[in-house]
């Protein structure tokens, strides 16, 4: 049986009917058409689904939507727009940190929490902060460069 719940995503309130076991990821993508968070492993390993809940990065595939009521949810769509990119998004473009792009939105969310708590991270700290996000294209080097660049600009 579906439950009617209210979610606050990127500052907007949404009312959605969900099954009790619906993941936040499925609701974001399927009900709210926010397809920035990607479904990769759907098992809390790849990080493609990362979003922020109350300012903390989480795997949305492992988060129950019903349990996310009353919390501030931020997806990659909420951090910048094509005509007004977040400094991390601009840095990913400038550093060439995107290849296929499937992991990018999740890594941006992990990097965002890093820079919010550690404005000037060293490389080890950056690599640790994105350890919960897999990228099979880039080898991470340019992703790390991009996060360093964003840290300098912020």
């Amino acid at each position, binding site marked *: 049986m579906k*439950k009617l719940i209210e979610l606050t995503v990127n500052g907007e309130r949404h009312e959605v009917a969900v099954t009790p*076991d619906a993941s936040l990821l499925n609701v974001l993508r399927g009900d709210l058409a926010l397809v920035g968070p990607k479904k990769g492993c759907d098992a809390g390993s790849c990080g493609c689904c990362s979003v922020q809940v109350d300012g903390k990065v989480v795997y949305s595939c492992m988060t129950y939507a*019903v349990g996310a009521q009353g919390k501030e949810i931020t997806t990659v769509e909420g951090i910048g727009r094509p005509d007004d990119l977040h400094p991390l998004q601009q840095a990913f473009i400038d550093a060439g940190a995107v290849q296929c792009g499937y992991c990018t939105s999740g890594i941006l969310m992990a990097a965002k929490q890093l820079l919010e708590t550690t404005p000037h991270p060293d490389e080890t700290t950056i690599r640790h902060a994105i350890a919960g996000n897999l990228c099979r294209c880039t080898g991470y080097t340019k992703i790390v460069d991009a996060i360093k660049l964003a840290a300098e600009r912020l």
Partner: protein
Amino acid sequence: MALPNVQDYFIPGTRQEAVDLLGKFGENAMLVAGGTFVHGLEVRGVLGEIEALIDIGQLGLAGIRSEGGMLVVGATTNFGAIQANEAIASAPQYAAILDALTYPPAQIINVGTIGGCIGASAPLYDLPCALSALDASLRIDGGKGAREVALGGFFTGLFENVLAGDELITEVVLPAASANTASAFLKLETNANDLAIVNLAVRLTVDSSGNCADTRIYVGGGIGESYARAVSAEAALNGSPAEAASFAAASEAVVNDIEPVDDHRASAPYRAHIAKVYTRRCLATALERLG
């Protein structure tokens, strides 16, 4: 839908409501704190019978306080809050806790809870291994009232523990350690998001004569169905000088206390070898932390 029989997702506001729900749904209820372990089981399709998800995030069980020299950690306290706690971060006796929390990625640190990883009752988890070596105990609430059990006696097998169907962990108690005590933890993993192939924690006290006393060594990962207390390694240490030769002797003894499994991730002899190496390294780290 991964939980085909689930009827509702409950968010009780009081412990009593949670206990009542557990009593009502029995074995077909699943507690949700951080939710990461539940999801792990869900995607493997083993929760087909679950009828009720019971979210215990609103029970007021998060937080860390001192109680007569002991530290009491609420069951839904997440790993990040534990890392940020000054009383834990500043005490060498608790260092194994922070060691264990260096491994999970931010996405798990932000939501995983101390009670959840204990309740999961799988020796592949790191924090319970560290907490076992610190002689932690658990406060439990349920239909028949509250009780306290030692973490060392909590696990009864893989995914098995002493909790009755209507009980839940409410708090984790860290006892005050003797003076001159430090701890350490190490884990072997293949990548940044991996379950332990072997994990190991020690607590070392050095007495006024410079000898090891009241040592604790626990081993987890693929070494049995639950964490193993390495009693023969502890016996080899207690009363011996706190120095490399004693640590080497203890590391040779640790293999008597474990039954490593042979699987695609590591052979049994390799796991045994790692347990030996980690015993030595953890003891050396703990000694270093005593300055």
